[in-house]
């Protein structure tokens, strides 16, 4: 057991150091990430402006909201989604796994007493931790500048707890979901296109593009059943009080269920895949 912990610890340290090499680039990159939000702020400003003018003239849309979102909520939503994505997005994971399978590098996990998924997870945790360490400053700065968009201020403590929990779960969900797609590489050697389709679906269905309440009724109901919404929409909606009370706890339970489902699925895919795998050459 102690040896095992030592192994993980070493992986962890290596990954941390790997990441700290490019910290300057990193901080700049994080700030750049908010640039699209800037255009979003102006776009929605222009839209809500027209709505409130129409409202003053007694036209449709009596309360100046879009699907229950005030202007501030809308901007706050986009900001919070960036936080969700900071937890749930796994750049290069699918590709990495598929590449290892294709190139045969995966063999090292078959002969060493190290679990591939565990190893990758440790690396991700390390990378994410370094990311938060460096990104907290730019994030805090941007959120402080944008504090007026958070119309209702901080949510109550129980909501905060659910918010943080859902973020942590979204990390695990994102990891195992993308790992599953990568592991499909045991069956199809080329999963780049699959990853592409996933990215596309994810952008729309996770609520990264816009709040899911904006989707028309039947599609919205369907999207609510999918796991994607926990990768971006759910934590943000909880924070903004769009999902509250019992509904919030049910949502959290469903998120846990999805996470467990993908953990098990990743295990199954790994075991089946390894059985199927044949390594050639070097």
């Amino acid at each position, binding site marked *: 057991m102690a040896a095992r912990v030592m192994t993980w610890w070493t992986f962890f340290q290596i990954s941390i150091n790997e990441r700290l090499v490019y910290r300057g680039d990193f901080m700049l990159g994080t700030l750049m990430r908010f640039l699209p939000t800037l255009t979003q702020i*102006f776009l929605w400003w222009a839209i*809500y402006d*027209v709505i409130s003018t129409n409202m003053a003239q007694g036209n449709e849309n009596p309360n100046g909201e879009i699907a229950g979102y005030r202007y501030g909520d809308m901007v706050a939503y986009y900001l919070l989604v960036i936080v969700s994505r900071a937890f749930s997005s796994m750049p290069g994971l699918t590709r990495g796994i598929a590449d290892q399978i294709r190139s045969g590098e995966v063999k090292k996990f078959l002969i060493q007493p190290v679990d591939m998924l565990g190893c990758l997870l440790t690396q991700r945790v390390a990378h994410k931790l370094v990311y938060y360490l460096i990104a907290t400053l730019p994030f805090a700065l941007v959120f402080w500048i944008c504090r007026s968009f958070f119309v209702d201020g901080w949510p109550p403590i129980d909501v905060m707890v659910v918010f943080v929990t859902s973020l942590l779960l979204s990390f695990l969900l994102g990891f195992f979901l993308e790992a599953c797609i990568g592991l499909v590489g045991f069956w199809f050697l080329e999963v780049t296109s699959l990853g592409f389709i996933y990215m596309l679906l994810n952008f729309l269905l996770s609520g990264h593009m816009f709040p899911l309440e904006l989707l028309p009724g039947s599609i919205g109901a369907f999207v609510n059943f999918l796991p994607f919404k926990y990768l971006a929409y759910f934590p943000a909606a909880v924070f903004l009080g769009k999902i509250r009370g019992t509904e919030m706890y049910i949502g959290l339970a469903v998120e846990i269920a999805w996470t467990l489902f993908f953990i098990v699925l990743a295990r199954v895919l790994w075991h089946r895949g390894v059985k199927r795998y044949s390594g050639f050459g070097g």
Partner: protein
Amino acid sequence: MQPSYLNVFLTFARNSLIRDMSFRMNFILQCVSSISWAVMNFGLFKIIYQHTSSIGRGSGWEENEFFIFLGTVWVINSLVQTFFMANAEEFSELIRTGNLDFALLKPIDTQFLISFPRINWAQLPNGILGAGLIVYSLIQLSNDSNKNLQLSLAYLPAFLFFVACGAIIMYSVMIVLSSTSIWLGRNQNLYTFWFYITNFYRYPMEIYQRSGIGMALWGTFTFVIPILVVSNIPARVLAQPLGTPWKTWELLLAGYTALAAVLSLVASRWVFKRALLSYRSASS
């Protein structure tokens, strides 16, 4: 002997097409994915226009006008991605690996040689889709009895002219960006950076024309890096959000766009040459 630039360009185009066709599945998937992005974007604005009558008060960007704008953005995006994007990335790579040496040795203008070798045909369908959206929205607009759209075929050359200006500006921005990799050693963030910059031209510029920060953004992206006029001016030619005849500022901005295209092309040429002077190959 003068090399025939046209023939070289056509050979590049043919080679790229052959290359694209040898990975046909990949080609189709690329087409599908870029079209899906566009359709998703379209869907978002369809939803938005169920809640609002226009984007920006008094700006005239109502639904059909805006979709002409969106179509124009797709057309320009597709031109840039088809002809320039892959090449700019390749240029950064040539610098990093030192393979630029071979390009410098060839008896043809180096900027031409690095600008066009790879034509990404898979990005072209998006532009066709954009043209379709423009035509469709124009028909809708001319059937709208509340609007008095004055349109004749004479507008087409003007539209194409400003689209060309836009493409030239985008090309120049890209060459400047990728030339920086000569000084920086490598520019991994080229695509990301391009994505962030183009974010600004995807919406009518009126949305920025309010508040101090907005005006600063508008000024920067009109006069320093002139990317707002890339999409706004051609779209205005067809959509005429404020009707005809054009207001004085619209005319001025249109004249400025043509000037900006020339200036940015000259500037990019200058930066490119300067950058080449600092090139010190690599490894070997």
